[in-house]
C-alpha cells in the first residue's frame, strides 16, 4: 500500500469520525465510508459491495433516548481497511463484516470517552466568553470536532500498520462454519435495526401500513423506488381522508357521530 493510499485512508477515517458526531454529511455511513476507502485503494467494487451490505445492517442504527446503537463509523472504516488489506476482494466481505461488528461495539466506549472529554472543552469556552474572545471559542469548537475525527483516525492508522499478511492469515484461518454462521447471523441482525426504528414510530394508527408494506414487498417485480412511491401515495391519501373526516366532524351535528363513519373511525384511533 502506497504512502498516498495510507494518508487518504486516514483522512477518510478522520472525516468518518467527524461525521459520526455531526451526523450531517453522512461520511460515517458504511455506504459512503467503505466506498471511499475502496476507491482510494483501488478496490472500488469490493468497497461498494461491502458498503451496501453493511449499510443494510446499520439502517436503523441511531442514538435515540436510552438505546445506544453500535458505532457505524468505526465499523465501516475498520471493515473496509481489513477488506482491502486482505486482498481477498469480494470474497472477503463476509469475514470483514464479522470482524466489524465487535469493533462497532468497542467504538461505543471511544464515543463516550470523547463526549466526556468535550466537557472541559466547553468550560474553556465559558472562560473565553468572559472576555468576549471569539477566536478562542471557535478554536475550542474546531478542536472538539478534530478530537472526534481522531477517535476513528487513530484506530484506523493502527489497523493499517498491521501487516497485510497477518490480516490475510487471520481471515483465512477463520473456519468455514464460523464465517458461514456469521453471515447467517448477519442476515438476522438486520432485524435489530428495524426493530429499534419500529419501536420509536409504531402507534395503533400506523401499524396497518406496516402490514401492507410487508405483503406488497413479496411481489419481487416492485423495486424499492416503486415501493417508496406507493408509500408516499398511501400517506397522502390517509392525510387527506383524515382532514376530511375532521372537517366533517367539526361541521356535523352532535359531537363525534357526524354520519361520517370513516371520520369517526379515524377519530377513535386517536
Amino acid at each position: 500500500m502506497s504512502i498516498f493510499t495510507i494518508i487518504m485512508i486516514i483522512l477518510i477515517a478522520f472525516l468518518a469520525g467527524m461525521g459520526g458526531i455531526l451526523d450531517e454529511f453522512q461520511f460515517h455511513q458504511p455506504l459512503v465510508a467503505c466506498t471511499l476507502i475502496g476507491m482510494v485503494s483501488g478496490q472500488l467494487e469490493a468497497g461498494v459491495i461491502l458498503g451496501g451490505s453493511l449499510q443494510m445492517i446499520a439502517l436503523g442504527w441511531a442514538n435515540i433516548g436510552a438505546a445506544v446503537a453500535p458505532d457505524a463509523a468505526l465499523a465501516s472504516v475498520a471493515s473496509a481497511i481489513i477488506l482491502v488489506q486482505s486482498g481477498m476482494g469480494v470474497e472477503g466481505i463476509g469475514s470483514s463484516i464479522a470482524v466489524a461488528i465487535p469493533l462497532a461495539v468497542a467504538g461505543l466506549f471511544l464515543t463516550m470517552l470523547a463526549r466526556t472529554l468535550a466537557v472541559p472543552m466547553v468550560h474553556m469556552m465559558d472562560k473565553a466568553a468572559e472576555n468576549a474572545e471569539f477566536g478562542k471559542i471557535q478554536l475550542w469548537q474546531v478542536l472538539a470536532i478534530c478530537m472526534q475525527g481522531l477517535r476513528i483516525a487513530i484506530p484506523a492508522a493502527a489497523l493499517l500498520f498491521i501487516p497485510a499478511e497477518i490480516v490475510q492469515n487471520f481471515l483465512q484461518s477463520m473456519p468455514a462454519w464460523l464465517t458461514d454462521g456469521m453471515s447467517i447471523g448477519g442476515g438476522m441482525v438486520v432485524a435489530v435495526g428495524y426493530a429499534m426504528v419500529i419501536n420509536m414510530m409504531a402507534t395503533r394508527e400506523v401499524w396497518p401500513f406496516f402490514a401492507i408494506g410487508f405483503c406488497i414487498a413479496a411481489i419481487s417485480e416492485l423495486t424499492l423506488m416503486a415501493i417508496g412511491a406507493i408509500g408516499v401515495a398511501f400517506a397522502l391519501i390517509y392525510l387527506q381522508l383524515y382532514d376530511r373526516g375532521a372537517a366533517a366532524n367539526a361541521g356535523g351535528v352532535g359531537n363525534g357521530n357526524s354520519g361520517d363513519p370513516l371520520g369517526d373511525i379515524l377519530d377513535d384511533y386517536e
Partner: protein
Amino acid sequence: MAEKVRLDKKERMQVAWRSTFLQGSWNYERMQNGGFCYAMIPAIKALYKNKEDQVAALKRHLEFFNTHPYMASPIIGVTLALEEDRAHGSNVDDQTINGVKVGMMGPLAGVGDPVFWFTLRPMLGALGASLAMSGNVLGPIIFFLAWNIIRWAFMWYTQEFGYKAGMKITDDLSGGLLQKVTKGASILGMFVLGSLVERWVTINFKPVVSTVQLQDGAFIDWDALIQDKYGIREALIQQGQGLSLTPEKVTTLQDNLNSLIPGLVPLLLTLFCMWLLKKNVSPIVIIIGLFIVGILGHLIGLL
C-alpha cells in the same frame, strides 16, 4: 441606538454554515451548547459592538441546548430575529431568548427523529445499499448527494423561515402542519419498514420436512433423453412445462413457512427483537446474541 443593524444574507448564510458543526463539541454536561454559540458568533459580532453586550450574548448561548441537529435551524432563525430586536433596544431579555430556545427544542426534536433518522435515512440507505450490493457505484453516490441536498435545503430554508417568522414560528409549528408532517412520515416509514423486513431480513431453515416420491411423468426421465444438445433442449422444455428435475419432491421447513406468508419468520424475528428492546435489553446484546444463534444454528444444521 440610532443605527438599526440588520443581519444581511451573507451573515445569515455564515450562521447556517456554522450550524452544520452544531454537534462538534457535544458533551455530557450541556450537550450542543458549544456548537450553538459557535454558530451564533457571526451574528453576535454584527449586532453588538461593545464588549459587555458581546460577553452577555456569548454566555447566553453557552447555556444547555439539545435538539435534532437539523431541527436546530428554525430555532437558530428565531433566535437571530430575537437577538436583532434586542440589539435594537427592544425589551427582549435573556429569559425570553432562552425560553424560546428551550421551548422549541423538545417538540422539534420529536419531529426530526422520525422524519430524518427513521424515514428518510433508512429509505435512501436501503435504496443506495440495494444498488451497491450488486457493485453499482451509483448506490453510494445517490445516497450521498440526495441526503446532502435535502439536508442543506432544509437547514437553509427553515432558518430563513424562522428568521422571518420571528416569534410567530412557535404558534405556526404547534398547529396542524407539524403534526401532519410527523404523521405522514411515520406512515411512509412504517410502510417502507414493512417491506424492508420482508426483503432484507433473511433466515433459511434447512431441515427437510418431507420427501415425496413423484409419479411417473411428473419428473424428467433423464435416461429416456438423448445424450446430446437435443437432449438438453428436451430437458429444458420439459422443465418449462413444470416437470420436476428429480424423482422426489423435497420440501424444507422453509418452503412450508413460505407457503403461509413469504417472510413470516423474518417478521416474527423482528417482533421478537422489538419485544426484547422494550424489555430494555441492549441492542448490542441482541446483535451479539443473533450472531451466536447463527453460528450454533449452522453447526447443528438448522440454519
